[in-house]
């Protein structure tokens, strides 16, 4: 389940990073877009290479599990919250294509800074890719910090990177029909389930069926999200009916 969670969470965030790179590339040149994106990727990778070993060396196994669980809960619950709002119609649906259009308009409106080298475009690509890949880095770091989970988490993220980069190279435009809202909601459920599981393990609480606990926890959180969506939809429809 760890590689799937890492791959899914990484893929949806990398799609947004890809949308920004493509938008800057189309309007200001791919050389500038890729330079900014590469600098951002190196920055995030360096941060993870510093944070990862420091986290592993500085904390005992139980404390590490609570830190990992807390971090996954932070990301998972936020994705779950946004997912419920999107599916119930309280928030605009997730779409890398919209992100692409917005970033393209921003890039087109930017003044050219620097002779030969477009620093404005590079900065835009850097900021977008840094923010999206920072989330990927922190989620993979959290999933991989639990004992025995590093290789599966890295494998999942690598598969996501290859798939998203391949799709971007082939299509030269983000997907328009990908159900990103539902995928993000699903990833929110998975991250919250892992976060709850690791936090309880770190606090020496026992789960029935032990390693299978993330599966029924995911079911529990998915059911909660579904009920929340239904109630919010009903509340939205109520004033229209009267």
């Amino acid at each position: 389940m760890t590689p799937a969670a890492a791959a899914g969470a990484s893929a949806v965030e990398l799609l947004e990073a890809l949308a920004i790179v493509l938008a800057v590339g189309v309007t200001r040149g791919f050389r500038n877009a890729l330079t900014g994106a590469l600098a951002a990727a190196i920055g995030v990778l360096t941060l993870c290479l510093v944070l990862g070993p420091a986290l592993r060396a500085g904390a005992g196994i139980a404390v590490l599990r609570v830190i990992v669980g807390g971090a996954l809960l932070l990301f998972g619950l936020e994705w779950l919250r946004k997912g419920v709002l999107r599916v119930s119609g309280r928030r605009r649906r997730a779409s890398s294509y919209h992100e692409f259009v917005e970033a393209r308009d921003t890039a087109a409106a930017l003044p050219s800074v620097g002779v030969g080298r477009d620093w404005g475009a590079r900065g835009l690509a850097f900021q977008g890719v840094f923010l999206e890949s920072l989330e990927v880095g922190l989620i993979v770091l959290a999933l991989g910090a639990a004992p025995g989970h590093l290789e599966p988490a890295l494998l999942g993220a690598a598969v996501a990177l290859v798939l998203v980069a391949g799709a971007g190279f082939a299509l030269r435009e983000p997907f328009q029909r990908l159900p990103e809202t539902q995928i993000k909601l699903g990833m929110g459920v998975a991250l919250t389930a892992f976060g709850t599981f690791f936090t309880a393990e770190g606090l020496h609480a026992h789960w029935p069926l032990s390693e299978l606990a993330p599966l029924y926890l995911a079911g529990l959180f998915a059911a909660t999200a579904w009920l929340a969506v239904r109630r919010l939809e009903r509340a939205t429809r109520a004033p229209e009916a009267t």
Partner: protein
Amino acid sequence: MTTLVKSVRRKILGETRMVPLGVATTVLLAYLARALLPDREWQTAGAFALAAAVIATLISALPADLRRPNNQPAVNQPDPNTTTRTNQ
């Protein structure tokens, strides 16, 4: 630079204060319960109490009309937990 720092904070802590506050409270209460309860009871019930606290955090971070009796929407009252920001 300030925009980047704000965006990083928003990426890590989220758009509402309820999620980070709820997670911190959940972990602190779990440590407290573990210290106060007998080991056997904590080991049996602790995990489910934690899951319940996570669900409570999620519900408290969602708009208030979700929690109202009869599920009535808030009238003329902007919800502090719901922003109209982009789709990040």
